[in-house]
């Protein structure tokens, strides 16, 4: 009889679980190379610390047998005995290296921290690449001689066989029968790239059989004698760029409030020559844990404002997810973030004070990104406010440089199209205009003005009249009457440059208003939505006439002055007036569809023909 209250144990469907762990845990098949190399590395560490052989040189060798589709990883480490094969290799979730690292009684604790294994899952990743795996291992005995060799054979179905075999060399050989879909790993360049990606800094030489030189560089740049040169070489090789600045990281004391803790940290941060906000930002680091590559372009370790920074870090305290392709977002990660932010801020502060030239190059190269973050971070804003550069109608300028020519006013445009005429008007008053189309520029300018009370901010687009001076219309009444008779709304003002006879002025958003009116007129909205759209448009109080724009004749222009002297107009006069109007429409470039543009050109041609005849 079944006891309904009895405690039951979950059942495992081993083949299903194996499939998940071996095939779905990782994002790429190549990660199997990392896991196999890490196991081999840990075995050599064990031999080094347990046997203390003075002449021992750890070594890992990879061999490709392309014609039969096998890949072999051989190490000359400590090897496994039968019991260890059963306990660790064939037991999922049990990790020999983690148990060693976590055992405080171990006499070689210091060395154990360099062991990499953690979850006891890594061996399963072999099945990402292989349909069958054969492990042959011979453990070193206390007297230094080889013990019995065992062969462990398994497929990805949850079954394995361990058998004693003829005597082999001390160490372990893992042979993989590579699946057809993973055959690319049997291409030597692919295999070498994977080794370099994952194990470049492992302190054991990794060879491709037949090649006398190791594939990996063994020592990270921050452990080389000439750290500076090695780091620059690394950045040039790996990132293909010349950094503006490099900051070397070191162990850092992090304040916990009640206590302090030391975060072990190595590596470097660097600033590339330039970035483009949203499209080509950085703010990421390459992460190594115990010299094994974990992830590229990790985004959360750097502070959010540091989108112009990249780096490479090594921190043994960071905890990894089971796939070991990412970091756990826990307290340790927060401490490491703090340690990095502290050092980055201190480094940038120091740089800003001691090397103005480089600091300015950084701010110029990354101005979009820096402007975006400065509006959110007051301290950062203070650091960059006077050295960040803006695109202006006179090239890139800092705000202090810009303000030298505008008498304490910041003039800017925000519209995507059709601001050229405002820029021309501003320039003719000797005023450069700041391009504030990028969303963060306007708030930056306003914040700057808020903190400098004597500075004002003026938006120029849609405000062309700001640059115009009123004049009496009386001397121009015939000109005005001519245009009015053609149904053209017209006014006369004085403005610079005097070579410009007239410009067109439109209400803000004229293109949108025009499109909406047309859509409403042609019934393109369902009635209930049309009512709401109409409600908004009527609130804007813009007439059809407004939408066609207002021609603003320039009283400062000699041509207009000359035309105004006529009380009646000859054909050549009317041709000239028509050309003035059509040029103004084309120069404004707004609300014209292709038919309008063709019509405008036609009228100009007609006018020119009339003048020639």
């Amino acid at each position: 009889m079944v006891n309904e209250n009895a405690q039951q144990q979950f059942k495992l469907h081993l083949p299903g679980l194996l499939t998940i762990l071996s095939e779905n845990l990782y994002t790429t098949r190549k990660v199997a190379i990392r896991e196999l190399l890490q196991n081999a590395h840990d075995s050599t560490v064990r031999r080094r610390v347990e046997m203390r052989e003075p002449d021992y040189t750890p070594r890992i060798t990879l061999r490709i047998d392309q014609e039969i589709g096998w890949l072999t990883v051989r190490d000359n480490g400590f090897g496994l005995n039968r019991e260890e094969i059963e306990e660790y290799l064939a037991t999922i979730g049990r990790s020999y290296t983690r148990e060693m690292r976590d055992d405080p009684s171990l006499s070689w604790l210091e060395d154990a921290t360099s062991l990499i294994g953690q979850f006891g899952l890594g061996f399963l990743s072999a099945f990402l690449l292989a349909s069958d795996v054969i492990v042959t291992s011979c453990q070193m005995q206390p007297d230094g001689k080889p013990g019995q060799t065992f062969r462990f054979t398994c497929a990805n179905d949850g079954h394995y066989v361990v058998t004693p075999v003829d005597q082999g060399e001390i160490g372990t050989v893992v042979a993989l029968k590579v699946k057809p879909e993973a055959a690319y790993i049997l291409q030597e360049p692919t295999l070498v790239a994977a080794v370099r990606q994952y194990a470049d800094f492992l302190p054991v030489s990794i060879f491709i059989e037949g090649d006398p030189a190791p594939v990996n560089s063994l020592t990270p740049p921050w452990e080389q004698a000439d750290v500076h040169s090695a780091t620059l070489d690394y950045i040039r090789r790996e990132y293909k760029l010349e950094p503006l600045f490099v900051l070397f990281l070191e162990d850092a004391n992090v304040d916990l409030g009640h206590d302090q803790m030391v975060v072990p940290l190595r590596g470097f941060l660097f600033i590339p020559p330039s970035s483009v906000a949203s499209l080509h930002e950085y703010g990421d680091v390459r992460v190594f844990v115990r010299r094994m590559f974990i992830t590229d372009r990790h985004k959360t370790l750097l502070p959010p404002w540091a989108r112009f920074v990249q780096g490479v870090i090594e921190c043994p305290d960071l905890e990894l997810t089971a796939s070991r392709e990412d970091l756990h977002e826990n307290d340790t990660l927060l401490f490491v973030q703090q340690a990095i932010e502290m050092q980055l801020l201190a480094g940038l502060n120091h740089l800003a004070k001691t090397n103005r030239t480089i600091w300015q190059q950084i701010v110029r190269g990354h101005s979009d990104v820096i402007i975006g973050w400065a509006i959110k971070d007051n301290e950062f804003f203070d650091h960059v406010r006077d050295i960040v550069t803006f695109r202006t109608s006179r090239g890139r300028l800092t705000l202090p440089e810009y303000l030298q020519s505008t008498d304490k006013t910041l003039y800017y445009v925000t519209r995507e199209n059709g601001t050229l005429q405002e820029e021309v008007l501003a320039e003719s008053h000797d005023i450069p205009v700041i391009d504030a189309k990028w969303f963060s520029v306007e708030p930056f300018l306003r914040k700057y003005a808020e903190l400098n009370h004597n500075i004002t901010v003026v938006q120029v687009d849609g405000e062309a009249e700001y640059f115009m001076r009123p004049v009496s219309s009386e001397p121009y009444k015939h000109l005005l009457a001519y245009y009015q008779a053609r149904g053209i709304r017209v006014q006369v003002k004085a403005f610079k440059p005097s070579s410009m006879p007239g410009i067109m002025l439109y209400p803000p958003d004229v293109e949108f208003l025009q499109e909406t009116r047309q859509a409403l007129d042609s019934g393109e909205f369902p009635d209930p939505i049309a009512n709401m759209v109409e409600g908004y448009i009527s609130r804007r109080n813009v007439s059809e006439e407004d939408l066609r724009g207002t021609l603003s004749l320039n009283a400062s222009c000699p041509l207009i002055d000359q035309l105004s002297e006529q009380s009646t107009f000859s054909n050549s006069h009317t041709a000239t007036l028509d050309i003035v109007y059509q040029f103004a429409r084309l120069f404004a470039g707004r609300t014209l569809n292709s038919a309008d543009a063709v019509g405008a050109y036609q009228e100009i041609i007609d006018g020119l023909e009339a003048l020639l005849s």
Partner: protein
Amino acid sequence: MSVWDWVMIQRIAISNSGDDARIAMDERFRSAFKFMDEDPDMALDLLSQSRLIAQELDEKWWVQLSNHWELQTLLFYKRDYNHVLEKAVKAAVEVRKPEYENFPQRICLHEDLIYSYLESDPIGYSEQIRSAIEYMESQVTPDLECRFCVSGLKTHFTILTGDIDLALDLALKYVEQSEHEDHYLSSAYIYLCAIAFARQDWQKMKDWALAGEVVSRRRNRENNLVEMLTCNAVATRCLGDEKEALRLCQAATQRAAGYGARLGARYYQMLAAYHELGGDLKKACQVRDRQLHEIEGTARHFVECQCRLEIVRLRKALGLPFEDAADGVRTAAKRLKEPSYILKQLESYLDHDV
């Protein structure tokens, strides 16, 4: 296909493409949601970045997707309506084009347009809003998540226009409809609480506030949770448990203090009611003053009028000068299409004991 199905399909394609610009576009969009409750300005920044990248890439549907969420952030998190109507109309004008015919968020953009009227002047535009909701209903198919939004919109509108019996019927149907959709269920309980408050059915109000609290916690809807706790405090006080009511009120105000976005009008309405029901009109008035301070400059005209009306009523009841406050109501009402609804209430407060 629902909009989130479409987003997921896009996301997989973007991830497979390895295209940096599109990955950045999606990353900004995705990150924005983390900030809506704690820092709506940051959420708006991220959404506008996503939209700008989408514009550069000519990803028109994505531009409108970001637009919709910018509008939602302005409407329900930042609660700043200064540019909401303009933005909603521009989006509606854009999505009328044939290339958006199958865009699943097209209806949501119509919803944003309706909300932009509903939240700023529901009485003045009641006919336009009513017919637009009916149109939305006719467009929603069972596979679209918009069916929940339409129910919520209709219930909210019916409460605002004062048909409480119909609102109750709609809110109960909304609860039934969103039984397995906590995001919407949480809002449905908010409406039920508002209806129970209007009917002074304190036991129902408490039951619905408790149910809503559970759902809001489960779904991490912090703004709704604060409102539920405040509603529960009001109901509990009316049911006579002062100690528990105080605990609930403190829990609500503490959470409100830590909330980074702006809370809705209902929070202030309930908090002021809590104090008034306890006889502390001075505190009720302080709550309304605080609300007014938060509303000013946000173009929430109808809410501002209601808040100013309450200040007049409370000041009069406290024996404080109220003429300036009454002028404030008159000035604010001028921004409404149909100010008489507010002005009549003002006159009744001024003419009678309150």
